């Protein structure tokens, strides 16, 4: 490989345009040929000059920061919202649990759970005559027909909708 051939390839070599095999042959030659090394350095100098000119043309850090365009608005995604609200949610849950457990112990707190055995009042509607129910021992005839004693005791839960008439008679509870 003579010098003229290398000089022809110097530009392509510096630009990374040679096939790998030819590049290796050039590199082998460059190790032995100072003249060709100088030729390659001359080619590379073009890139260095342009890079240096571009590098110093940049704005100052302050100017660059001032040129930053407005940031996009924050879009709240369900995942992001849930992450942000997680501590609040936990706090609410703990407070609710505290109220629930506390109400069972405190005599002054509203009774959310009725103790077993406490009498409850339920209003029932039935088409069966009261006398018949009394005869069957279901109800106390002397009691108001609108009042019965229900057993077993059930918690008073808020009704989700309009009250429906009971389809079956309510069994009497033993006091």
């Amino acid at each position, binding site marked *: 490989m003579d010098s003229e051939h290398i000089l022809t390839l110097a530009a392509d070599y510096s630009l*990374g*345009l040679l096939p790998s095999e030819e590049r290796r042959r050039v590199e082998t030659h460059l190790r032995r040929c100072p003249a060709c090394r100088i030729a390659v350095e001359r080619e590379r100098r*073009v890139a260095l*000059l342009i*890079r240096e000119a571009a590098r110093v043309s940049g704005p100052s850090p302050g100017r*660059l920061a001032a040129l930053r365009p407005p940031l996009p608005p924050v879009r709240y*995604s369900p995942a992001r919202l849930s992450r942000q609200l997680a501590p609040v949610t936990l706090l609410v849950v703990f407070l609710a649990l505290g109220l629930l457990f506390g109400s069972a112990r405190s005599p002054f707190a509203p009774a959310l759970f009725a103790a077993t055995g406490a009498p409850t009042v339920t209003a029932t509607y039935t088409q069966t005559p009261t006398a018949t129910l009394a005869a069957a021992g279901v109800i106390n005839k002397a009691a108001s027909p609108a009042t019965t004693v229900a057993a077993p005791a059930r918690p008073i839960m808020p009704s989700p909708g309009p009250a429906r008439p009971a389809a079956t008679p309510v069994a009497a509870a033993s006091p």
Partner: protein
Amino acid sequence: MSDQPLLTWTEAKTVPAEDEISSVIGRCLSGDQHAYIELYELHGGMIYRLAFSLLQDTQDAEEVLQDSFEYAFRRLAHFDPRKSAFKTWLYRIAISRCRNKRRRKWLPSFSLTQFEDREPRDPTAPQPEERAEMSEQQRAVWQAVGELSPKLREVAILRYYGGLQYGEIGQVLDIPTKTAESRMRLAHKALRERLAALIEPES
């Protein structure tokens, strides 16, 4: 051929790794506004220098910088890392803005200036105040770059400054890799001739 490593083409310490960029982009898309700032700080200088190298006008380069990032922020969810590196995608946006700037400057104008006895402004020439601040060497370099056609100038800047491989240059400019290579040869030959006085072999 296009896999040849670039020998000190770019300042390696300022080029963030692609997985770091992916992490920042992920935080942007999750709504982390600081991540947008970080993305800008990582690439803003690079985009500005690219625009200035192509347009050689400070105001134009600043506008290209702002327009490019405004668009990139808005369309970040559409960036596909499987198709290209983030830097390549950003360069593509900036190149498009630079071309628009160049086109607008050469559109026919019916202002009174056309009747004045003076030559139309060369969009590639540095402004008078900019020239005063430049060294002789820089002036010579920018003049040589400015004398290249826009097509050759784009390839030269993307390679010399951007440090892109020819396949990446092809992606940015939407041209075949071979076309990028041949334009690079032509650009390099022209620049070497015009900068002959500045090219001295290092001892």
